[in-house]
C-alpha cells in the first residue's frame, strides 16, 4: 500500500486513472526497450544540367541568338524550377564560358547524379527532340571506358526518355525520340538524355511558336521539371 499510495501521491490521481496511465505506458516502455530503428535517410537526388556550347563555341545559329545563350538561359530557368521542387542541381556552366566536352562529362560523373540532361536548341525540326545514346547496353563494370561509360546506363536513360516524353506530351508539346552518338552523353555515367528544343511548328512547316517565345520556353521547362520530379519518385521506389 505504501507503494500504491506513493504512486497516487506522485501522479496525484485516482486508481482507475492510474491503471489507464500504466496501461498506456506499457507499449511505450516496450518500444523503448526495442532496439532503435534509425529513420531511413532520404537518398540524395541530383540532376546535372549541361547547357551545351559556350564561350568560343556558339553552337547553332537561332533566330535572334546563338544556341549557347539559349541553352544557358534554359539551364538557369530549369535550375530554379528544380530547386523549387527540392531537387539538387549541378550545372556544367553558369556563364558564357568554354567548357570542354570531357570536362562536362567529368562534372556529371563526379556529381554521382540520378539524371543528366544535355540542353540544346535548333531551328530544324519541330517540338522537342529527345536523344539517348546509341551505344549498345552493357553490364556495369568497375572501371568503365571513358568514351562508352554511358553503355551501362542506356536502359535507364531510355526509361527516363519515356518519362520526359510523357511529361512533354502532357504539356501539349510535340516530341520526337531518337538515338545519337554524342561525345558528352556517351561519357556520362548516369541516366543521360540530350534535349534539343526546336520551334513548335504546325503541320505545314510554318513556324507556329518560335524558340524565343517566353511561354513556349516556360512550358518546356515546366514539363522537364515535372518529369524530373516523377523520375525522382521512380528512382526512390524500392
Amino acid at each position, binding site marked *: 500500500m505504501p507503494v500504491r499510495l506513493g504512486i497516487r501521491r506522485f501522479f496525484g490521481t485516482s486508481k482507475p486513472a492510474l491503471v489507464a496511465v500504466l496501461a498506456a505506458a506499457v507499449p511505450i516502455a516496450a518500444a523503448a526497450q526495442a532496439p532503435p530503428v534509425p529513420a531511413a535517410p532520404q537518398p540524395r537526388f541530383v540532376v546535372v544540367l549541361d547547357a551545351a556550347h559556350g564561350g568560343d563555341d556558339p*553552337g547553332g545559329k537561332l533566330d535572334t541568338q546563338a544556341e549557347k545563350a539559349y541553352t544557358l538561359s534554359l539551364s538557369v530557368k530549369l535550375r530554379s524550377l528544380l530547386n523549387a521542387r527540392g531537387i539538387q542541381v549541378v550545372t556544367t556552366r553558369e556563364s558564357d564560358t568554354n567548357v570542354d566536352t570531357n570536362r562536362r562529362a567529368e562534372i556529371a560523373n563526379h556529381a554521382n547524379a540520378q539524371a543528366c540532361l544535355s540542353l540544346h536548341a535548333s531551328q530544324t525540326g519541330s517540338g522537342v*527532340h529527345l536523344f539517348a545514346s546509341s551505344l549498345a547496353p552493357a553490364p556495369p563494370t568497375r572501371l568503365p571506358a571513358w568514351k562508352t561509360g554511358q553503355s551501362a546506363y542506356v536502359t535507364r536513360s531510355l526509361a527516363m526518355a519515356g518519362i520526359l516524353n510523357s511529361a512533354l506530351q502532357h504539356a501539349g508539346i510535340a516530341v520526337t525520340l531518337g538515338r*545519337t552518338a554524342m561525345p558528352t552523353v556517351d561519357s556520362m555515367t548516369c541516366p543521360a538524355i540530350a534535349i534539343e528544343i526546336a520551334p513548335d511548328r504546325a503541320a505545314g512547316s510554318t513556324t507556329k511558336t518560335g524558340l524565343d517565345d517566353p511561354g513556349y520556353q516556360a512550358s518546356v521547362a515546366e514539363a522537364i521539371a515535372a518529369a524530373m520530379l516523377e523520375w525522382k519518385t521512380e528512382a526512390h521506389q524500392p
Partner: protein
Amino acid sequence: MIARYQTILFGVLLAASVAMGIVLWQLRERAHQRLLQGQDSAPTQAPEVAPAEPATLLVANDADNSLLSQVQTLPLPKDPGARARLILGKLMDLYAAPDAAHPVPGGSSSIAQVFLLPAPGLSAGITTPSSPAKTPEASGPQLAVVNLTGAFAASHPSGLEAETLTVLSICGTLHANLPRVTQVRFLVDGQPRPTLAGHADLTRTYLATDAVPTEGAHP
C-alpha cells in the same frame, strides 16, 4: 633636244617592260594550266554507257526524325567505291533541293570520296583448295570511309537531329546498296573531325546496320 643617252635608256626600259610583260603572261598561263590539272577529275556523273539500276536511298525527314526508303533508278558504275560515291551524291542532291524535307546545302559534290576496306577484326584469310578465290577480304564485311568536303561540313545546319539524320542516312544508304558495308567512318577533307557541325560524333565507327530502320521508323 633630248640627249642621245636618254633616248637609248628609254628604249632599253621600254624593251625590258615589254619583255617582262610577255614573261608574266606566260607564267600566268602556266599557273592556270597547273591549276586545271590539279583539280579533282574524278567523275561525279556516271558514264552514259553504264546501265540504269535501282538504288535504295534512305532519305531523312526533319519533321518526324525519320528515315524513309526511296528507290531511284541511276546509271551506276561497276566499281563499288565509285558506285557508293554516286549513290551518296544522289542522296545529297535530294537534300540540296529547294523543297527538301532535310535541307542540307552542297549537293553531290559534298562527297569527295568513298573508300571500301576490309572491316577491322576480320580474321586472316584462310584459303582452301576447293575455294581459292573466296577469301574473307573478297566476301567479308567492309568498312566504308566516307570523305566529306570541308565546305559541306561548314554549311551543314547545326543541330542534334539534323546532324544525326545526315550521318544515319549515309550509313543506311551505303548498307542498303552495298550489304557488305557493315561499318562506316567519316573524314572531312581527309582529316578526322570531332563532330559534323557541333553535335554528331564523327570520331566513332558507325555500325551501318543500326541505321537501317523499318519503313518510316525513327532511327
